[in-house]
């Protein structure tokens, strides 16, 4: 083996090691959404969203055990396209946004289901109450963004029981189950 080929092999190994390293991503709020769905009087579903949130995660497809996710949602940013309803949702009847301005999720374990799907278990905190939840995460894709920056897209779903977090107003007319859907584009840091 010549010196040149040895050097080439060393560089290749270094490149491989670098790519296997866990990457840090920061959520791009412009290309992300935190949506929720709740049943209304057994007739239909009401959809809403949180306009302000932030988060980051560590992602290594080869070593999911090292992966982690953090998400912080500003409860005062709830938006259901009905200002009076939003005011009510922010009140102590529901989110109690002035006393509890944030809802947070911090992962405790990540399990790889297949190349595209993961199960992320973590602690979800709402109105000061923390409960373990498992979120189904699907990797939509990876690739360069508009400025060539590496991006990763995921879509996650989890169904929570709002009564677990002491949000009991108008049960059962407004369903206990609330489906959260978190669509994220994150930029590699």
């Amino acid at each position: 083996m010549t010196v040149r080929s040895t050097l080439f092999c060393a560089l290749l190994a270094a490149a491989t090691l670098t790519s296997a390293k866990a990457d840090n991503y920061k959520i791009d709020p412009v290309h992300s959404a935190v949506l929720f769905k709740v049943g209304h009087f057994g007739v239909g579903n009401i959809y809403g969203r949180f306009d302000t949130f932030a988060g980051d995660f560590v992602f290594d497809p080869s070593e999911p055990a090292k992966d982690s996710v953090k998400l912080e949602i500003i409860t005062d940013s709830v938006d259901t396209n009905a200002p009076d309803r939003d005011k009510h949702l922010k009140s102590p009847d529901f989110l109690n946004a002035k006393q509890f301005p944030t809802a947070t999720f911090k992962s405790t374990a990540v399990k790889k289901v297949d190349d595209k799907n993961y199960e992320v278990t973590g602690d979800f905190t709402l109105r000061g109450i923390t409960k373990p939840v498992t979120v189904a995460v699907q990797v939509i894709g990876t690739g360069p963004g508009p400025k060539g920056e590496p991006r990763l897209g995921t879509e996650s779903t989890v169904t929570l029981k709002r009564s677990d977090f002491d949000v009991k107003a108008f049960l059962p007319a407004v369903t206990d189950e609330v489906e959260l859907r978190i669509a994220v584009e994150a930029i590699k840091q």
Partner: protein
Amino acid sequence: MGSLIGQGIVGIVLPALLALILNGLVLRAALAESRKWPFIGLIIAGCFAFSYSVLLGGIAFPPREATHWLPFIAVGAVVFGTILQFTSGLGRSVVRLIAALATAWTVLQLQIFGRWPLPISVEWLVAVTLILFATSRLIERAGALRNTPTEILLGMALAAGFGGVALFFGGSAVLGQICNTFGLLLAGLTILTFFLPPAQLGPVIPLIYVLVFGSLLLNGSLFSDLPWATAGLFWLAPFGVLIGPPASSGGNRNLRLLLRGLIVLVLVGLAFVALFLISPPHGNEY
């Protein structure tokens, strides 16, 4: 819709009727008047706590939020009110001050820890304590000098009942419903005292009113969107019964009651004007 109506019947109408019957029995009982009021206070507080439990899906223990304290404040007010009933002199003021401070603390504690600067927190705590202290003393003393118990109760019932409507429009439907129940409980007692007039109201009911309604208004303004001006006018509303000639001057008691009720309603009306000017509803039904 059916479940909400059912919840309203069990959470609002049932406790109001129960309190009406039980308070009627107590008022008719062969007991000294000073001993009747603690029982009546306990019935009011118990029915209020029951209503809270139905409308909010249970009583949280230990309380974690300002609103969680409401049933405990109601029961605590009965205890402090009963002590007041049988205390005199400086001890009476001390007991009243402790009750006011404890209530102010339970409502403001979540804001005090790390949200507001300490001096502002202390100012709020002192201000709310003094307002609660002074109001309960004023309603009890000035009311006793100028009004019949029915007149004082009418002022409190109207303020609490319509205060619930204001809380509803101020963003918190559940707090509004709880406040409505409180108003109905007092309204029932007003009707009872009209037909079974006691000589004096005593300190128990005014203290429950001040601490519970004060907490509800504070919760509405601090954590929901009830304008402070509206809360302030509701706070002043029961003092409308102090206007006009004292009850001891004689005259037609029904007419006097009606006029005093109207003065309270004028203040309630002003509170609603303030509410709709400062925080107009968007008119989107949801």
